């Protein structure tokens, strides 16, 4: 028998009427692994999560949790029998119960002292010790979300599912809560699948990032790999700003206006460059163009340069530089960076 993984999804299919939300997704999760599922709205990532949690039933394919089939398209194990923790965008706390009662809701049938100990422990993990007696309406948005996290972790689920857990919070709170979530998951050794539409969040939080589009899993790999070796132009553009340059395939070499493209096959036609791969230069090397757009970003400027060949590329300029629209500047690849050949979206 092979190793028992916390989660194995095999060719999962779920349609709503004529709309295929999840169209044959296969993915599995290793022990203690955190995977971020990311994609544009409507890509099916939330439906996938709901199916794993038992809130939707699959039309085809199967889901196994800790080696046990919980959904095979015919029979569905109800959510309460799956030992899966759920955290939603809206905290979804039980408003009529105290923090203690919320966190202990999933601990029914255990001795009282054990329940109290576990609640204390979980509130400690999310840094909310002493909040037992409060009601949800007495908490801030971030605190509610941490209570929801403690509540979901309390019964020691084999797997945690997060559906846009930080989307309703403002930026600062979001980063703080993200650290809480990751440290709580690491502390308890719980595998987790986190659905988000925020690329930065996905790259920051996941051991792996799974990118979905139109119900399909396009790529799942380490954050570094999906960002710097995207499977196709969609992944490249979705995870961050990217410019695409046409490639000319010569005899064994592939070249764009910015120079050679290492690793391109004879069938790839475009290469990706990220803004941080390109710099503005005043020397007589590189390619000349005109600045068409300027955006100040604090640590640097983001500029769009229309090269004289007619192609636009995004580039970063140091914040001491003062690029203006209409300036004629030269651009070149930053030393050590390379252009990445990418496949077109099928």
């Amino acid at each position: 028998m092979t190793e028992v993984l916390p989660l194995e999804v095999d060719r999962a299919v779920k349609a709503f009427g004529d709309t295929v939300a999840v169209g044959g997704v296969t993915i599995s999760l290793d022990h203690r692994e955190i995977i971020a599922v990311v994609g544009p709205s409507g890509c099916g990532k939330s439906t996938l999560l709901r199916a794993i949690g038992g809130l939707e039933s699959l039309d085809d394919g199967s889901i196994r949790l800790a080696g046990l089939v919980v959904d095979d398209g015919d029979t569905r194990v109800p959510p309460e029998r799956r030992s899966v923790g759920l955290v939603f965008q809206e905290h979804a706390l039980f408003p009529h119960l105290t923090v203690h009662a919320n966190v202990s809701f999933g601990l029914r049938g255990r001795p009282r002292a054990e329940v109290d100990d576990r609640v204390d422990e979980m509130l400690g993990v999310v840094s909310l010790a002493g909040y037992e007696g409060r009601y949800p309406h007495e908490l801030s948005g971030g605190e509610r979300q941490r209570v929801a996290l403690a509540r979901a972790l309390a019964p020691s689920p084999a797997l945690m599912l997060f559906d846009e857990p930080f989307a309703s919070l403002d930026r600062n709170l979001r980063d703080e809560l993200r650290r809480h979530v990751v440290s709580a998951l690491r502390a308890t050794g719980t595998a987790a699948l986190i659905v988000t539409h925020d690329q930065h969040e996905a790259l920051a939080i996941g051991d792996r990032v799974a990118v979905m589009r139109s119900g399909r899993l396009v790529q799942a790999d380490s954050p570094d790999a999906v960002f710097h070796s995207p499977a196709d132009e969609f992944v490249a553009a979705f995870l961050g700003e990217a410019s695409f340059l046409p490639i000319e395939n010569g005899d064994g070499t592939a070249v764009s206006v910015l120079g050679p493209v290492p690793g391109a096959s004879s069938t790839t036609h475009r290469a990706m460059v990220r803004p941080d791969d390109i710099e503005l230069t005043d020397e007589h090397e590189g390619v000349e163009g005109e600045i068409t757009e300027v955006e100040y970003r604090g640590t640097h400027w983001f500029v769009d340069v229309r090269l004289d060949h007619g192609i636009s590329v995004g580039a970063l300029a140091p914040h001491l530089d003062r690029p203006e629209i209409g300036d004629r500047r030269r651009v070149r690849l930053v030393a050590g960076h390379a252009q990445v050949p990418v496949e077109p979206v099928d």
Partner: protein
Amino acid sequence: MTSVDAERPSASTSSPSESPSGPPSDRVVLSAGDRASRSGWPVAAVVVGVLVVIPVAFLSVSILDPNEEVWRQQWRTRLPGQLVDTAVLLVGVSIGSLVLGCGLAWLVTAYRFPGSRLFGWLLVAPLAMPSYVLGFVTLSVFGFTGPIQGWWRDTFGDDAWFPPVRSMGGAIVVFTLVLYPYVFLLARTALADQAGAAYDVARSLGAGPVEAARRVVLPLLRPALAAGASIVMMETLTDFATVQYFSVDTVSVGVFRIWRGTFDRDAAAEFATLVLVVALLIIGIERILRGRARYGESAGAARRLAARRLTGVRAAAAFCTCSFVLLLAFGAPTAQLVVWAIDEATGPRGTPLVDQFPGFLQNSVVLAAFTAVICVIAAVVVTNAQRFHPGRTTGIATRVTAIGYAVPGPVVAIGVVLALVALDDALEFIGLGLPGAVATGSFVGLVYAYCVRFLAPGLNTIESGLAQVPEMVTASARSLGARPSRVASRIHLPLSRASILTGAVLVTVDAVKELPIALLLRPIGFDTLSVWTFNLVSESRFEQAALPALAIIVVALVPVALLSRQLARLSGEPSS
């Protein structure tokens, strides 16, 4: 190592069709207990839906084998007149209610005058006045022997013309006065939700106030008005008591006459299908009038209509209009009832009827309590089933459960009789014949019919209460290991307690006010307040009917008070 395949099927996992017979560990998870917990709620919801539909189904089936003799005889005698009376009454009452309800709604929404905010919810009060009560007070006060006509003859001579009160016209006025609040309520909500911005835009485009109201506001209100008119017609159609005071002979009266006159079940059933057809016609007309628009769809924080301040004569006229309607529909008849009740209680003849009062009150309360408890339980089961198992089965069950409002009382009553007779026969057949038939005039039948008829208001209230509990709260509770029954009792019930109570109150009040079903189905010797009132009025003992009538009005004021809180919000100053 973890495997991630984008689209390539992995060979290591068994295909779905093989899974049920997979390794033994699978069977541990897919135990029988899981299947039971999956199916319990939808089954319960379907049972409720079927129980609600059965009476209507039995009735509909009865028409498949029509008794031509009955129809021929009816056609030769009363039927043509009944059809005409039904049509005239329904059209008259709906026009009256639309004009009065819509006009008053516009008056208290678009203008400010002394008391305008108070009238905003006071004008709903006639909802608490049952038509059979306003009907008899009107007859006695305005009738030939009443004080008004007496004064008229004294003043203008014995031959002076006075509009006939015991007539179609009288019936239309009485029904209009008690039913206009439905239109008023829906029109006010629609005006508050939608009309503000549209009216302002129309004015800014050069339309005068009247033109803006006619060309923009009225079309916006159309769905609400169609809904209001259809409720008004349904309420009119279900009645066969009040119309009899006014010698108006509708198809519902026909059912009652056949049932009470001959106890011919089949003939009554066939006639009741005619009432059902009229009800379906009303629903069809509403659908057409409503068009593709939806009512009750608020555009979020829509701007309210900026009310114009009225002064002088105009303010006085507006005040008098509202006061007059309120006085006619509620104030004066209530005052008259109070006077009669006091006369009766303190009069020289003593108070024999007052002694009977507790008995009738108890009957009403017991009946209403049974109905409310059953309706609330059924509504909780159906709405929770839909939450735990969203899908077509529970969706249909929910919609079916709410059909009672569209099925007139006589139809429900006769349908229940047919269903219970079939049940009696079936029990007899399998040798379980109960002592005393279940069907004919039993308390069970009466409660059953009440539940079918009044599940809709309870269901709607409880459904909207549960809708306030986010689906994610349910999902969270279940993922924490709580079975649906625990989620329902620990999470859903506490969180929707207020709406459950409101639903129970609405059903209770409807049950206390109900007359037609009680008249048709009450067991012998089991008279409710409403039946007692009707019987006394039938013997023209108006003064004695005052006490039970007042008791009913007091009970019926409870939901009006509940509504008033909601309406007070509508009449709040427009937030800028």
